[in-house]
């Protein structure tokens, strides 16, 4: 586990009587793309939330770049999300009141960047993901595939070290899903961003360096490709 950018040790998490995580250890190196597979309800999303510090595990530790997330105050974890982490979820995370361009510029603006500068960077990322034409549209007026590309652009605009993607293609048909997946991994690799990619799409293996399988809150198989 040496050289791990992000590492989790023996994570436990329960929701009431439901055990979502029952002792999961996981690590990912800088720039690595790891696919997290497993049936629905097995604890993939919970793992991802714990890894990114937006959910506190009941037991176990998550260490990012030498810092234990559980010990960081909320403001510090917010800062990490703003600078080092990016997120793409299945749906619902674009702000419908803002245009796609403004959505992509939003993380930079929350970090205090001037509007002009933030939007210049946003345009660049929209182009990189092939959705420059959605800049002036609102998310509800774009297709599902376009929305997810915009979401990827927004997650990567700050140049994060880790991208957390939770079934980013779950709401898309398989063709456009695969295209989004390819665009996302290509762009992330080009900028050296590691990806924790939760999915239950089997063909995802083609885009990942490594694959882990979660079952009943534990990692069952861990294999290197």
């Amino acid at each position, binding site marked *: 586990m040496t050289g791990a950018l992000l590492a989790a040790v023996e994570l436990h998490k329960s929701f009431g009587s439901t055990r979502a995580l029952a002792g999961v250890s996981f690590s990912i190196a800088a720039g690595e793309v790891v696919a997290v597979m497993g049936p629905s309800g097995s604890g993939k999303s919970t793992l991802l939330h714990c890894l990114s510090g937006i959910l506190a595990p009941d037991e176990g530790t998550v260490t990012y770049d030498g810092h234990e997330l559980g010990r960081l105050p909320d403001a510090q974890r917010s800062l990490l999300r703003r600078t080092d982490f990016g997120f793409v979820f299945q749906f619902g995370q674009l*702000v419908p009141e803002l245009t796609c361009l403004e959505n992509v510029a939003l993380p930079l603006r929350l970090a205090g960047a001037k509007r002009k500068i933030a939007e210049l960077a946003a345009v660049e990322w929209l182009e990189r993901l092939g959705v420059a034409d959605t800049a002036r549209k609102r998310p509800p007026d774009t297709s599902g595939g376009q929305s997810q590309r915009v979401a990827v652009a927004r997650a990567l605009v700050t140049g994060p070290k880790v991208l957390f993607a939770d079934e980013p293609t779950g709401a898309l048909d398989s063709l456009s899903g695969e295209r989004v997946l390819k665009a996302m991994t290509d762009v992330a690799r080009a900028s050296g961003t590691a990806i924790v990619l939760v999915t239950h799409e089997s063909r995802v293996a083609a885009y990942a360096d490594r694959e882990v399988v979660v079952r009943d809150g534990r990692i069952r198989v861990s294999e290197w490709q």
Partner: protein
Amino acid sequence: MNADMAIGIRLAVGRGMGSRLAVVRFVLVVLDIGLCVAVLLFAAAAIDTIGSSSDREAARAPVLDKRAGVTPLSLVNISSAYRGSSISGRQVRGGPLSPVPPGVPAIPGPGEVFVSPELARLLDSDPALRARFGGTRAGLIEPSGLVDAGELYFYEGVDRLPDDRDITTAYAFGDERRGGTTPAEMILVSGVAVVLLAPLLVFIACVGRLGGVERDQRLATLRLLGATAPQVRRIAAAESLAGAVAGLAVGVAMFFAVHRRVDGLQVGNFRFSAADFVPPWWRFALVLLIVLVLVVGAVLLGMRSTVVEPLSVTRDSGAPMRRLRWRLLPAASGVAFLLPIALDLVHENKDVTMLVSCAIASALVAIPVLLPWLVERAVAPLTGGLPSWQLAVRRLQVDSGTPSRVVGGIAVVLAAAVGGQTIITSVAGLHAGTPDLSELQAHRLSGYTDGLYLLSAFTLLAAGASLLVLVVQQLGERRRAVAALSAIGVPWQVIGRSLLWQNLIPIGFGVLVANLAGAGLAVATLHVLGAPAVFDWRFAGAVSIGAVLTVCFATVLGIPVLRASARLDALRSE
């Protein structure tokens, strides 16, 4: 910090440009806050009209105490009916050293008459009336000598006063003890004004807080993107502030647009004059400030019990007992305000007025605060029935959020309308039976009554607008769930009826509570005034039915929009 403000404002603007339903909702909210603001501004101005007219009335009241070196002015009060309004005035006889009443340059000599501008206009247009006023017109009475611009008033010089009348000997004019507003009138006017204006404030707070679910989702997204908790609060404050400012702008525009048109408008005995209807700038500013603080405060207060987390928004509901205890607070403070009166501890009229006003305000706040809790208790044991009924009841049991707010709003307005109307009817009845009521007081009272009717009409109008906003909002919130129901094949008729039930159940409840509360408030106020309560059941019935119909109407109107947007959603996710 500035960037947070900018983001908040941008989100507010975005709200006004999104989907069709979002646009409708945003426009309605802005119009609604605007309407409430305009009514509040008129009320702020009207306080002055009431005050200034009673000041002017006091200024012309005779001082009866003897004064050295003054030849008293002998006068007789005259009044007669003319086509539904009353012409009143004084026959006067005095010398060069006699006191001169306000508004006229000198005491009219025998055969001379000073008339108010409105009376002059009548005299010029009606020869028959002219025949009754024999004197030559010496001039017009200036506004300082008149209660309002529409008053029909005169001073007639005579050399012999009629023997069969009470003759007043005035040594001066301007007796504060006699002409001014009586304490009972102060209680009446301030009590009813509070009753009628409080719902506007409640509505502004309710409507300003709308869209909580969507806002929470938006804020959770911002948290996910790395916004800190204080940053999110600033953004939410800026967003609500922007909405409030838009509402204020519309309100001020409405105020001035209407203001220009009401000049000279006559409602009963009450005559508007545009000059009387501009509140002083500081009061104008105060109304705007109160509304801003109310909207932003309501949003921030609503967020205080909410932990905005990146994943979702969790409401910190606490123990059920504690929640109820908190909800009982306004009701308890209402009782606390009345306690000193009931125990006979306060006797000063001013103190009584203040306590009663505070009690009424607390009671009105208590209604929307307590009702959601009551509605949840009431629907909890309901079961079975038709599918539409079952869907509605289940939904209300799970979450009575917006419907409860609708009910709270309605209940406040209904309570205020029923209470205000009862007070007006009862006091009018009380005064009708008072034999020694002076002409002036009668005039003033009827002016108040007309003013209060007008105010309650405006409040009901604002209430109707707010109801519409709340119902449209509720339809918006239910959009996804409705789309899901329709997707699994539940017919639209059933969905529509279920939506109707979802609103009708709480509203039926609210109407009941509101009528009881309104009658209760009126009885309490009238008890302080020493008047027996006269209930106007027909009025109460009419406004109750009006409220229920407004909700039905808004729901039925909203269903096609809902249906269209649900279909659009379905298309998009394919």
